[in-house]
């Protein structure tokens, strides 16, 4: 939990009311009893609630994106559909997509997904899976003191950005990776598999950067308003419709 709480030990104020009346949401800092050792308690942040889907990377140092994303069901469908039906993926992108798809976890009923703020050293739901809600003991709402100086500060809700924005960030990340490639052929081959287009399983899209950007905006719009995005993107083929109607 390094950016939020100190490594030397903090004293925090915990209230035991919110989890009993069900007022916890994603982004809250909670005190939980460790599922692996019931004598220990952990302080982690709730990332996703029941019913969400979570993608994550077990080893953030070697992965393309260290962020964990909360994915609504429709995106998972689209990603799976595109991986299965689009043969034009470059190896990099298909590896990325398969990594994300294989790490897609469904948070079952009555469970939450918790993670530490310091992804590199934290042992959390990425290791032991979704956590039963009954193990939550309280919500941390205030930090009272650090080890040598007393300082008050409220612990803020630090929610992950909305899935649409995160996906756009992913798209931008891909785009930056593409731009950094020196040789033209490599760039072309990577563009063919750029994620906004690979979400739409139509084959034969050309690889101009303008279209790639359009795909990113479309992906954002898909999250905000589905019908508008479909009209705007224009060229959505049959399997895309099936995937979207299955939402």
């Amino acid at each position, binding site marked *: 939990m390094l950016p939020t709480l100190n490594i030397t030990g903090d004293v925090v104020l915990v209230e035991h009311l919110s989890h009993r009346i069900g007022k916890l949401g994603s982004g809250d800092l909670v005190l939980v*009893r*460790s*599922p*692996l*050792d*019931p*004598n220990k308690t952990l302080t982690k942040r709730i990332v996703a609630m029941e019913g969400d889907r979570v993608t994550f990377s077990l080893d953030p140092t070697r992965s393309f994106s260290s962020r964990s994303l909360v994915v609504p069901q429709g995106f998972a469908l689209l990603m799976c559909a595109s991986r299965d039906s689009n043969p034009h993926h470059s190896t990099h992108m298909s590896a990325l997509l398969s990594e994300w798809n294989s790490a897609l976890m469904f948070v*079952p*009923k*009555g*469970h939450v997904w918790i993670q530490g703020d310091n992804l590199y050293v934290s042992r959390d739901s990425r290791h032991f899976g979704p956590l*039963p*809600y*009954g*193990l*939550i003991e309280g919500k941390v709402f205030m930090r009272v003191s650090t080890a040598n100086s007393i300082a008050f500060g409220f612990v803020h809700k630090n929610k992950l950005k909305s899935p649409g924005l995160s996906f756009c960030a992913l798209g931008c990340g891909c785009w930056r990776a593409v731009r950094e490639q020196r040789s033209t052929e490599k760039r072309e081959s990577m563009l063919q598999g750029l994620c906004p287009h690979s979400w739409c399983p139509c084959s034969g899209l050309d690889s101009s950067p303008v279209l790639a950007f359009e795909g990113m905006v479309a992906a954002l719009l898909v999250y905000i308003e589905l019908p508008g995005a479909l009209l705007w993107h224009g060229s959505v083929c049959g399997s895309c419709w099936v995937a979207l109607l299955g939402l």
Partner: protein
Amino acid sequence: MGTPSVLWNVAKKCFTVGVISLTVSDLFASIVPVRGASMSPTFNPKTNSLLDSLSDDRVLVEKLCLSNYKFSHGDVIVFCSPDNHKEKHIKRIVGLPGDWVGTIYDVVHIPEGHCWVEGDNSASSLDSRSFGPVPLGLVKGRVTHILWPPHRVSSIERKTSRNRVSPS
């Protein structure tokens, strides 16, 4: 001016008794009713269709075992349901961390910090066979005695089935 001070004394006593009983029930022991027939030979042996809450068993749950979470095979425990934190179940521990438990379909290894619970009446019991191993942190106490129907007051003994569990 006798009445207000008497009232004040009664209120103070009620408050003190309330706080003490809340502390005792939270830290040491409490009495809970048992509903349903999932533990049928042990609790609620007669399954009557009329939901007569007076005939339900009342059991004593001790919570001192929660200080170190040491349980043994055959203990009857109260725990929060992993699917719904508002429900509490009473089941018997069949397997502890590190054991291999045989079910109808396969043999399950119980991970660290979990236990395998099953009801005594396996025909009508929702237990680890449907939701898997239960984290020990969800355990809220150990059932030691039956208290309420006066002719059934007794302590609960441990029952183990050796042939299903193999320690690793």
